């Protein structure tokens, strides 16, 4: 691993931790933090491999004590929370978003960014729903069907789509700004 990529991945994690505390929802009841926004931008800005790695580091830091998960949760106990699957989804989604952004044959980079982040935002739900199901049925012994679980998540769909669009555009903007200043190597 290139040392510059290592430090950049680490700094991306720091930005994401800070982002989780910048609340831009101002007044609306659903908290709108930059956490998911940064997660979706990871693949676009530092590439699929390091993007996914940054999410691994983020989740590990949360598991081992930093209060960085939503509502200031953190610690090993988060492993048994039914929503932990979404954090695993972060890793997968950052990877997929980055890979799509690299491989998709779309001319306009903003469109390409938004398409990648939209697909990434959907991908987060796969491990999220599966984990929820497993925790509810195996560990907590309170069985819910997969359909009920999907039902819980419906209210989050529209904000997530908006976030994905914002992340796609912002991600490409930031990436271009960094490339212009030679702070990012593009293959």
């Amino acid at each position, binding site marked *: 691993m290139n040392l510059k990529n290592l430090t950049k991945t680490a700094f991306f994690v720091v930005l994401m931790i800070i982002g989780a505390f*910048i609340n831009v929802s101002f007044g609306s009841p659903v908290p709108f933090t930059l956490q998911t926004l940064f997660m979706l931008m990871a693949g676009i800005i530092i590439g699929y491999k390091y993007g996914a790695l940054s999410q691994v580091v983020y989740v590990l830091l949360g598991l*081992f004590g930093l209060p960085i998960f939503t509502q200031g949760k953190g*610690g*090993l106990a988060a492993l048994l929370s039914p929503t932990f699957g979404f954090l695993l989804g972060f890793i997968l989604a950052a990877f997929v978003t980055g890979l799509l952004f690299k491989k998709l044959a779309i001319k306009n980079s903003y469109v390409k960014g938004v398409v990648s982040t939209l697909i990434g935002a959907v991908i987060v739900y796969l491990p999220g729903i599966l984990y929820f199901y497993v925790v509810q049925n195996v560990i907590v012994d309170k069985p819910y069907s997969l359909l009920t679980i999907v039902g819980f998540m419906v209210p989050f769909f529209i904000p997530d789509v908006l976030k994905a669009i*914002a992340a796609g555009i*912002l991600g490409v903007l*930031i990436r271009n*700004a960094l490339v212009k200043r030679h702070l990012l190597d593009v293959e």
Partner: protein
Amino acid sequence: MIKDITIGQYIYKDSVVHKLDPRTKILASMFFMFGIFLINNITEYIFVFLLTAITIYLSQIPVMKIIKGLKPIFPLMMLTVIMNMFFTQGAAIFHWAFINITREGIYLAGFMGIRIFFLIIFTSLLTLTTSPITLTNGIEGLLTPLKRFKVPSHEIAMMMSIALRFIPTLIDETDKIMKAQKARGADFESGNIIKRTKSLVPILIPLFISAFTRADELAMAMEARGYRGDEGRTRFKELKYRNIDRIILTIFAFVLVFLIIRKIAF
């Protein structure tokens, strides 16, 4: 608003628990976490209580500190208890309109509440008694066997240490940038979602540029000091399992295996 993040609840004490190998503490916490969901009667809960109480006593961590740590989790705990109380089928003992409280519901709610309570107290002891750097060393040690599957364990631990070190620095930086842009008349606090997203651009771009410039400088500084990754690296402080670590791990593993076998067999 960002200043509220407190990093690391580590409290330094010269105790037996502090001196354990971090790998022992991580593994023991994990065994405890899975074990607590497999126990099912009062005697075993008393045993868990004693284990937790003795560990807290040995760690010399003030009990108030631990209770304070429970505060953010409290709403979640109450929610679990209430959900279990109201939505469990069984013999009703209280009935009003659509609310149904059952005997089974109360049992389940009580057990779930106690489980989550002990789970959080015991796992929080891990971070209270282990400094962040020791903890990352421990994680690196535990991930090392995964190197065979190309998991970059050393790099992950290094990134964790770098991230921990630079959180305060970048918080200050973010604060400065936000204030600077506000002074220039930037408005982050009104407008619809599109306007708000747009208002993020003058914060995020300087923030990323400053962070990535620092990252480049750090990489150069590390290279200049001869950092070449894991290969051939020696350590000033090496992790070492002592006898007490072996004993604790054996006991925890033994109990967990017993509980799993019991769950499957009966």
